[in-house]
């Protein structure tokens, strides 16, 4: 099942299946952890449906478990999700001609994974996206996430944590795959420049992990990586 130029809602769901696979693994793991920390199924469902963000939810659960202040949790959540602003800014121009309502609907459900999916899709569709395709992919991922986290919470300690089977690696594998597919498919940026940016981000991440909390580092590395890319592209001309 490779990506095609089909922008129908059906294709959106089909192409989000690998994402769903990752969400099932991580979602169940989240449910188990939340349950173990004393959260009810309703609270788990609300966390997934209202906040909807893997890393943010793990942080919220661990901070609420020690009764951290609302402000402290809020700051952490904002920090870990601040890269959403960057991703939404990249996606938004593709929906400029759609209604404001549709723009808000697409924006509301964007995640790291569906963002990466959308960016890859551009390479097959002559750089266009459609509401039907993106919304279907987003909604499918959203529902799978909500269900997986609740199932994890309901099963609780009855089942073995899917992390033991490597299920949590599904999302990492997805990023590796989407990164590779992006690099080979994107003809708008020279390959050498793309590889240089990737190498630069790797260095920033490894060095940065020594002294910058990882949530802040993810955003910083992305911003520095983009800046480095702009400098390279400009210098190459």
């Amino acid at each position, binding site marked *: 099942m490779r990506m095609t130029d089909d922008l129908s809602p059906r294709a959106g769901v089909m192409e989000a299946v690998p994402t769903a696979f990752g969400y099932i693994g991580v979602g169940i793991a989240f449910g188990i952890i939340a349950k173990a920390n004393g959260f009810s199924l309703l609270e788990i469902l*609300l966390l997934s449906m209202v906040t909807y963000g893997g890393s943010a939810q793990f942080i919220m659960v661990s901070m609420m478990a020690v009764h951290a202040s609302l402000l402290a949790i809020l700051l952490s959540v904002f920090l870990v*999700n601040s890269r959403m602003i960057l991703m939404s800014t990249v996606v*938004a121009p593709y929906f400029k001609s759609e209604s404001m309502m549709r*723009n808000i609907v697409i924006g509301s459900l964007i995640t790291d994974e569906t*963002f990466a999916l959308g960016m890859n899709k551009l390479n097959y569709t002559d750089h266009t996206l459609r509401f039907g395709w993106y919304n279907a992919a987003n909604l499918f991922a959203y529902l799978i996430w909500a269900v997986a986290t609740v199932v994890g919470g309901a099963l609780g300690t009855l089942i073995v944590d899917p992390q033991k089977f*490597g299920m949590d690696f599904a999302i990492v594998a997805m990023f590796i795959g989407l990164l590779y597919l992006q690099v080979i498919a994107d003809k708008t940026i020279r390959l050498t420049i793309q590889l240089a940016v990737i190498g630069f981000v790797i260095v920033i991440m490894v060095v940065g992990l020594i002294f910058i909390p990882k949530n802040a*580092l993810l955003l910083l590395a992305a911003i520095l990586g983009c800046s480095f890319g702009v400098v390279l592209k400009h210098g190459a001309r």
Partner: protein
Amino acid sequence: MALDSYVLGVILVSGLVTWLSRIFPFVLLKHFSLPAVVINFLSFVPISIMTALWINSLFIQHLGHFPAVDWPNFLASGPTILSAMISKNLMVIVVVGVISLAVIKAVM
């Protein structure tokens, strides 16, 4: 089905902040266009973010010290990259990745 008011408050406020982060650019860019230099900058967001998220999963942070390598994830990345090169198919890549990590964890 207990719902603690502190938990509800945290969820609602965090949800609002996250939602605003997500939709703000869509609302803003409905009426404004970005200058070329910003578009150029943003064209590097996908590879930068995907690389950062991947590397993030390969290390365990110990602030003030060198990060420890997450060896299972590190080793599983090899076959995953290989499967990407061979298959160019996301589902295959994800399945190979998960099986690789499961095998590595079973052996280690």
